[in-house]
């Protein structure tokens, strides 16, 4: 009787039938090369690895090598000096706060841009991308002027007891400016593709608008939101140009880690500069890995 050949049949194959089978071709390495209808794996992978090496891997290795010229004790002393610790705290702390704030306002901005039509929408759309295009120093100077105690915005904040420039608040403001487009631009396409009938389904099941947004719309955005958040955060950690104009740059108070690196470089302390860079690299890389893991978990339903 005919029946479909299953895996079990293969496993229980007798020696006789096995002998009748043509000899299997010598197995090739299949780790990197799989037969595929989409050609070009070798070429694209080769170019990718070359470029990544030249642009990312080799320079970063050089940083690590430079830092390794010191003894472990020296390395540790520089990496954990009070001034360095304060700088890490400010750089990572302000970048995190700015990314969270961007996470909220970025979603609202994307929502407004996708869901509604309003006069000047094209203009707002272009404004969102401006932080990408503007030289960061220009942004820093403009923000510092605006938020300084005598500036257009700052003069209204001073009576309220809020100091928004030349301190960590100023750093955060600059990083919010820099990071906003990352969140908006990653959320936007996902929100645009989100099917309306899902929200209608929630409504027909008795959910009010708030429930629908909190339980249906936002969870669907979570993976994209995390991507945007991670990009805004990473950019914030490394941001230099705009921040130094508004930060005030007081050691221990408003000095960001990238600035500390520059200061060490100007004093020809290359190994010390590399040390701080290595610490930032390690922390950033670990955080991005963790965010990627969370993201994979958030995409489990795809």
């Amino acid at each position, binding site marked *: 009787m005919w029946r479909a050949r299953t895996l079990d049949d293969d496993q229980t194959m007798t020696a006789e039938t096995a002998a009748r089978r043509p000899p299997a071709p010598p197995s090739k390495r299949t780790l990197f090369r799989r037969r595929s209808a989409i050609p070009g794996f070798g070429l694209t992978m080769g170019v990718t690895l070359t470029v990544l090496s030249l642009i990312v891997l080799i320079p970063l290795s050089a940083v690590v090598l430079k830092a390794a010229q010191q003894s472990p004790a020296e390395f540790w002393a520089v990496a954990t000096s009070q001034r360095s610790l304060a700088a890490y705290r400010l750089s990572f702390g302000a970048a995190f706060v700015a990314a969270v704030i961007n996470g909220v306002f970025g979603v609202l901005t994307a929502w407004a841009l996708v869901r509604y039509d309003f006069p000047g929408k094209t203009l707002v759309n272009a404004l969102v991308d401006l932080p990408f295009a503007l030289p960061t120093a220009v942004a820093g100077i403009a923000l510092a002027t605006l938020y300084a105690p005598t500036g257009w915005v700052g003069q209204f904040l001073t009576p309220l007891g809020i100091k928004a420039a030349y301190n960590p608040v100023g750093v955060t403001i600059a990083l919010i400016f820099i990071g906003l487009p990352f969140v908006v631009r990653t959320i936007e396409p996902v929100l645009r593709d989100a*099917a309306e*009938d899902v929200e209608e389904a*929630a*409504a027909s*099941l008795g959910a009010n608008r708030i429930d629908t947004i909190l339980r249906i719309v936002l969870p*669907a955005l979570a993976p994209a939101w995390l991507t945007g958040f991670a990009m805004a955060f990473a950019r914030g950690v490394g941001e230099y140009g705009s921040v130094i104009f508004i930060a005030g740059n007081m050691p221990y108070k408003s000095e960001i880690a990238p600035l500390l690196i520059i200061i060490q470089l100007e004093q020809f302390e290359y190994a010390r500069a590399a040390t701080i860079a290595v610490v930032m690299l390690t922390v950033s890389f670990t955080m991005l890995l963790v965010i990627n893991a969370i993201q994979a978990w958030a995409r489990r*339903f795809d």
Partner: protein
Amino acid sequence: MTISIRSVDKQFGRYPALSKVDLEIADGELLALLGPSGSGKTTLLRTIAGLEFPDAGQVLFDGEDVTFASAADRRVGFVFQQYALFKHMTVAKNIAFGLDVRKGKDKPSKAEIAQRVEDLLKLVELDGLGKRYPSQLSGGQRQRVALSRALAVQPSVLLLDEPFGALDATVRKSLRKELRRVHDATGVTTIFVTHDQEEALELADRVAILNKGSIEQIGTPDQVHDQPETAFVCGFVGEANCFEGQVGGGEFKAGALRLPAGGVRDGSATAYVRPHDFVLDDGGFAVRVDRAHVQGALTTVNATAADGRPIEISASRAEAPRFQGTVKIAARKAHVYAA
């Protein structure tokens, strides 16, 4: 629950989607809204659901005016053509959603919700799949989840928008039976939209046929098929040969075809004859048989009348050998409508 639609109008821009639609749906009935695309059937369904609001007219649930009540307040179960499942939730969470969003004392306990989900999964024969995500299910399974999610809130009316439209033919057939079974088991008033007449005639207690935003006829599947009230219904439901001709002296004439006009006033008219209403008859008119092919128990004959008009005839399989060369046929039944 009874549903009354009273002279509902709805326009999209300048295009009228519904005009003066009246419809009464009895408690526990299974009604099909059948029509070509653009006939307004989905708009009518969405108006009943509270997903669209009419420009004029009323929607009554059990005599109560719900014309402008929100979808959330109407307690309707709605099943979408593209399922509209919450893809970040498991199947069980999807089904539980309607109960889970209830507030205060309306909200059942966790155990009650779990029990209800379990029962519904069993009802649609998906037991054991509660922990899967929608992306891990087939199209037919997804639509079953959508159906049980809609039923979870014990809706007073179940509305389905082309529920089987995105599925392949085999799955569609089995889900049709499934819907009928679920309807009979729950007794919930059910309205579904379809453009597939076979689906409507097979499944529904009554069929409402829509065309250009108006209801052309409402009746049982037999009524709309055997006694079509308008030319549109006759042409849309079931197969029909269409003849343009003249009525004079109580008789419809088109070429060699003669049919009783049945009270239609003199002038131009259109007649429809179902393929199975043509029979071999020596007193009839001559047609040339082009092709006769057997399909299961039936013979389908493509013939040409003397004036070049194509005619389709459906006969029993046993008659196949008689359809050769030129034969004489007559219509034993016809529907004539004034043009």
